[in-house]
């Protein structure tokens, strides 16, 4: 398995991620794109602010990518995560996985985003008209 993990404060390029995982050996590619939603629980979101503990975030993403590679026969796996200030509609994360058969691509991609959201030290503040809230911080 080949892996590319990147954290960037620049807009993510989805096509570049897809091109990177494409290969003549693969039959299926699954791609997940997390985008900034305009509302949370009915309140209008103005923007998102992502902060990261970059070194550890890359280490954790490397780890979960390796786990995905052990669980499923993946060929190439890429994760690009954005930091900084994002407008509504922008991509916060792009995950693309290629595999010989589609089941592995789907399952590894789902595993990546589900686990990333649980363990990777990246924090998202939703900014509303009346202030900002760090997502998931409080019970």
């Amino acid at each position, binding site marked *: 398995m080949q892996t590319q993990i990147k954290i960037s404060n620049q807009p993510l390029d989805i096509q570049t991620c897809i091109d990177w995982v494409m290969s003549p050996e693969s039959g299926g590619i699954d791609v997940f794109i997390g985008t900034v939603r305009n509302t949370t629980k009915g309140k209008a979101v103005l923007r998102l602010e992502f902060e990261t503990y970059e070194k*550890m975030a890359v280490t954790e993403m490397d780890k979960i990518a390796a786990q995905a590679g052990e669980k499923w026969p993946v060929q190439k796996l890429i994760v690009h995560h954005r930091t900084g200030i994002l407008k509504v509609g922008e991509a916060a*994360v792009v995950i693309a996985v290629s595999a010989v058969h589609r089941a592995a691509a789907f399952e590894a991609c789902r595993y990546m985003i589900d686990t990333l*959201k649980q363990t*990777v030290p990246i*924090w*998202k503040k939703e900014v509303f008209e009346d202030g900002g809230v760090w997502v998931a911080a409080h019970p």
Partner: protein
Amino acid sequence: MKINILAFGIAKDIFGGPSVSVELGNDANVSNLKYALEKEYPKLKQLASYMIAVNNEYALPGDGIHSNDEIAIIPPVSGG
């Protein structure tokens, strides 16, 4: 020993800055660190949870802390 702790997300707000220092015994572990931090910053106890990372890895309560370790407080993550 004096330990410097990196802070992110809401922990940065609670500490009022990107890092804080605490004084710990030389054989301190993660649990001792959490106790010291919560005494100084009781708002930490209101978080859904938080972890301590030692040298870029999640640490367990019994893991030791050394003066040259890179220590960080990891409030609930919300990437993706």
